[in-house]
């Protein structure tokens, strides 16, 4: 088992217009590390996350995630890999409005047998525990609809979902951009402690430099990416 959660070498990526978005000679994240990746919008952050999570395919170079060379996997296998090993949290509206809080958290178990199997003792119990720890279940039942929750609560539900079934890698893409500063710090502390509890690697991306101090390591996308894209597709 390799010591690296993310291991990128000679990565290049360009959208259809041919303008290079990413040109990363080397980028490594160790297992269990909590990394803050900073960068303004349009700097290629989201594209990098897309490649790491296996949604996008690198144009050139090698991308190993948890020891798996994503370039060698088919689209379907990459989807399977993501479902089994990666938890994702987005900016906002992470949740399906037509599912209950509980069912939203259980979504990864629905699509991945690996996540279902690793949720201990069973997905529903783990979901309840996670929601409890994140302070969601204290008021009301987990069966209620997510639309009744505040944005901050919704983001915490999204974290519970990302952590269900103990994925080795948690990727958060600007998860705090819709939260005020108090809620933001609380949210990050919760996210980090939950990741520590499961030993998950955390890759946290934001344009907000003020958050960097909370992490093991912080770096700017400019430090690793030699390409200087004008516009990112997001």
């Amino acid at each position, binding site marked *: 088992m390799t010591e690296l959660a993310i291991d990128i070498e000679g990565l290049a990526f360009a959208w259809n217009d041919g303008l290079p978005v990413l040109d990363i000679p080397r980028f490594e994240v160790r297992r269990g590390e909590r990394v803050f990746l900073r960068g303004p919008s349009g700097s290629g952050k*989201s594209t990098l*996350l*897309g490649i790491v*999570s296996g*949604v*996008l395919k690198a144009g050139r170079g090698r991308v190993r995630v948890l020891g798996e060379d994503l370039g060698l996997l088919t*689209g*379907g296998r990459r*989807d*399977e890999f*993501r*479902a*089994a090993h990666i938890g*994702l949290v*987005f*900016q906002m*509206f*992470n*949740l*399906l*409005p*037509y*599912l209950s809080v509980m*069912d939203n958290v259980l*979504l*990864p178990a*629905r*699509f*991945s047998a690996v*996540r279902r199997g690793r949720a201990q003792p069973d997905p529903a119990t783990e979901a309840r525990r996670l929601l409890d720890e994140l302070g969601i279940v204290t008021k009301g039942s987990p069966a209620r609809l997510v639309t009744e929750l505040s944005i901050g609560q919704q983001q915490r539900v999204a974290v519970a*979902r990302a952590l269900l079934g103990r994925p080795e890698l948690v990727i958060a*893409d600007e998860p705090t951009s819709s939260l005020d500063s108090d809620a933001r710090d609380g949210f990050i502390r919760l996210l980090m402690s939950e990741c520590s509890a499961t030993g998950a690697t955390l890759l946290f991306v934001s344009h907000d430099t003020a958050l960097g101090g909370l992490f093991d390591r912080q770096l700017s996308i400019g430090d690793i990416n030699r390409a200087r894209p004008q516009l990112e*597709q*997001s």
Partner: protein
Amino acid sequence: MKPLIGLAARSLWNRRGSAALTVFAIAISVMLLVGVETVRNGARESFARTISGTDLIVGARSGPVNLLLYSVFRIGDATTNVSWQSFELVSRHPDVAWTIPISLGDSHRGYRVMGTNGDYFRHYRYGNRQALALAAGKAFEDAHDAVVGAEVARQLGYRIGDEIMIAHGIGEVSFAEHGDHPFRIAGILGPTGTPVDRTVHVSLDAIAGIHEDWQGGTRAIAAEPRHPHDIDDPEGAAAEEAARPALAGITAFLVGMRTKDSLLQMQRALNEYRAEPLTAVIPGVALQQLWQIVNVADRALFLVATFVVLAGLIGMLTAILTSLRERRREMAILRSVGARPMHVFTLLMLEASLLALAGVVLGITAAHAALASTAQLLASRFGLFMEMGGPGVYDLLLAGAVVSAAVLAGLVPAWLAYRNSLADGLTIRT
């Protein structure tokens, strides 16, 4: 597949307003199609089973379909009568096994009154050569007895012994009743599912009797002198005739032959009969002709109903396609938790199938409920007797066809969503 059905159902439920409209559009179109088809089948059934065992229907010269309509279906009127002599002549022909005289023109509370004689109960057959059976009472014996069809008895609540009046003409409301000649119900026939159920039967004597002093009536009432040139009129005929009341003519008569060999010959002889312009038709042939006329309208209806179903499905397609744009986020979320593009494709296909299935089930249920509740009306007003067996094989086939068409239509949005989710990946477009 399994994890997706619940998702598809709940995603639809979340958009239940527009989903319900889509389901209703499909349901109404399916309802129309089922309705048209059931009425079509019912009509064909009813047609085929109305008369059986009769070899010829004979009436005054007219079209075969017209003759069939008024003599068997009690729809419309004869233009003229058939003279009693012609009827007698045919009745006594050696190749003829039996005849049934029919005299129409009066009514009782919207139901046609038919004058006939005992031969009607002996020889008339319907459906699969079934004879008429009395549910209660007995056939008429004198000019004051009436035998009512099953539906007449049920609808009007008649029992044996009740007295009824007969009106001149055939409207439901008649101002000219034969008030001086009341009838007593002597018998009630069992249900046949044919126009017999809606008929009040009286004897020919009674018809003659009630019209005796009817001045403005439609019929000649006085006995006419016999035509001396009746070819093979034996002596006995006059004597038998004298025993009957003076009835100048009847509306039509049914003929049963001893052997089928002479049927066509007899038909031609009657159609070419010099003394009186007559039309003789073979019921099966006339039914076929009538059905062909009806069938044109009927096929047009079916075509229209099919196109309405198509419109319903296009409505569904529009609704799903419109929703795709606002659901890109939903697809991206699903992708982030492990759904593959193929899952997204399947989800959209399931959505189309669920909408269509709900529409079809609702439509078929509603159609059968509507048919069941209007069966009475259809039977009494239009003479359509529906087979009310609930949804059957046809409905299953229809459901299969509509859902298949919906699945085909669903391929379009499913493919679009598949492509979108490949291109969008986890990027949520806001």
